[in-house]
């Protein structure tokens, strides 16, 4: 059984995490950790309760950063915050699409950003897993989904990750070794087992966002309207007018072990503007950026066709949106 510790501040929390090492788990909302513990996917020796730590709270401009969001914010509060709703709608939409309202009342932004990857073969009971040959994620040497894969292909189902990657966010992480910032673009690995570059002694403390003069949108394709992990998600952020697009960041989520920046699609929009023919070509080009896709939770070939459809849908909606004003 694990030991539970409740640090009073961030210093105590990072000290406890450094002492616990790989056998420590952070507990904030608990909506993923408790399920993973029940399924025997993690068995921490120490659980560090960081819910409500003052250093993880707060949202607003901070120093040089136009917006700093404490990683401990509940997804409900993130989705309803007036600044987020008005200026970073893709993030509000992404936060709102996680789980149910009950879950969002508990789950935090930091937790969603480091959500463990999921797979139909591992996210099951221990007995279920025991009836299969172990895979890359369960200390074995194969992938049940893509037989030829030399790495784990479990899916990163975070909804806030693609939205924040489209918004070009940075993360702040703190450990006993100090504080560092990392671009979200450098935070994830295309590996279902080691899916983030976060060190085992680091806590995500905040998300830092650039000034928002962008049109942004997030959408999520699910089996049902509520509660599901996505078959695929798409987030996009564009700056400039339709004829003179200055930047276009288009990101597909829930299609691989990391959120995928659709660089070819974005380059087409920047080069040719946001118009029907460019959008159609960008949607077709998304396939190149996706690479090999594990069609977990969906039929073969589905996800590539889905992403094409999502790019069309999101860019067409953005094209019709009014330009943001200050």
């Amino acid at each position, binding site marked *: *059984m694990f030991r*539970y510790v409740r640090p009073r501040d961030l210093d105590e929390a990072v000290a406890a995490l450094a002492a616990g090492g790989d056998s420590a788990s952070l*507990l904030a909302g608990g909506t993923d950790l408790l399920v993973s513990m029940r399924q025997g996917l993690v068995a921490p020796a120490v659980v560090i309760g960081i819910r409500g730590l003052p250093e993880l709270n707060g949202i607003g401009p901070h120093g040089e950063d136009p917006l700093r969001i404490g990683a401990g914010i509940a997804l409900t509060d993130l989705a309803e915050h007036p600044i987020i709703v008005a200026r970073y709608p893709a993030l509000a939409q992404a936060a709102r699409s996680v*789980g*149910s309202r*009950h879950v969002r*009342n508990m789950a935090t932004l930091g937790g969603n950003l480091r959500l463990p990857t999921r797979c139909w073969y591992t996210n099951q009971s221990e007995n279920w897993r025991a009836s299969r040959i172990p895979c890359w994620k369960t200390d074995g040497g194969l992938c049940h989904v893509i037989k030829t894969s030399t790495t784990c292909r479990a899916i990163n189902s975070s909804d806030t990750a693609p939205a924040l990657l489209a918004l070009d966010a940075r993360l702040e992480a703190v450990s006993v070794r100090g504080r560092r910032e990392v671009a979200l673009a450098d935070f994830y690995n295309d590996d279902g087992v080691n899916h983030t570059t976060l060190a085992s002694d680091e806590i995500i403390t905040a998300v830092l966002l650039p000034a928002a003069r962008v049109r942004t949108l997030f959408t999520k394709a699910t089996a049902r309207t509520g*509660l599901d992990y996505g078959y695929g998600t798409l987030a996009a952020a564009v700056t400039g007018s339709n004829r003179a697009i200055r930047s276009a960041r288009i990101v597909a989520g829930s299609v691989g072990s990391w959120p995928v920046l659709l660089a070819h699609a974005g380059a087409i929009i920047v080069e040719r503007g946001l118009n029907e023919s460019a959008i159609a070509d960008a949607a077709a080009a998304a396939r190149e950026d996706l690479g090999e896709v594990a069609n977990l939770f969906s039929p073969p070939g589905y996800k590539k066709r889905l992403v094409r459809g999502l790019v069309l849908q999101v860019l067409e909606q953005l094209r019709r949106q009014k330009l943001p004003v200050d």
Partner: protein
Amino acid sequence: MADRQFITLTVNGDRHRVPVAVQDTLVDVLRNRLGLMGTKRGCTSGACGVCTVQGDDGRAVLACLSLAVEWDGRALTTIEGVATPAGLHPVQQAFLEFGAVQCGACTPGLIMTAKALLDTNPNPDEADINEALAGALCRCTGHIKVKEAVRQAILRMAAATTEEPDGRTEG
């Protein structure tokens, strides 16, 4: 047991000092230590909502995904604390009138979900109601009668607030 400790928990206004094991979830403590069996243990993965309770901010939270030790010093409301000596809560009354019940297993969770919605948003629209109820499932029938009941409860509570400035609802 060495991993047992006491927590102070205020449930429905009553303060309890309860021994808990570190791995106990809030629903374990409510049911097994305090005998409050209205809060159910269902999917234990955040999908069904039968363990819904209201935290001290009025929001719906899942008692099966909360470690009891994390609730030390906090207050919550369970289904047992919803009715008053004066009578049923408008949400409960509306569930009765609209027959928004079949086997009943999901009913406490649905009522807590609806109450949390109305406590945090007195005038929810259709989308708000759907969004809230998406986290509390009924497997017998569906959500139509539940939604009718919630809409009725909204009207009742709004009327009661207008009639009685102190916000009490009719008995």
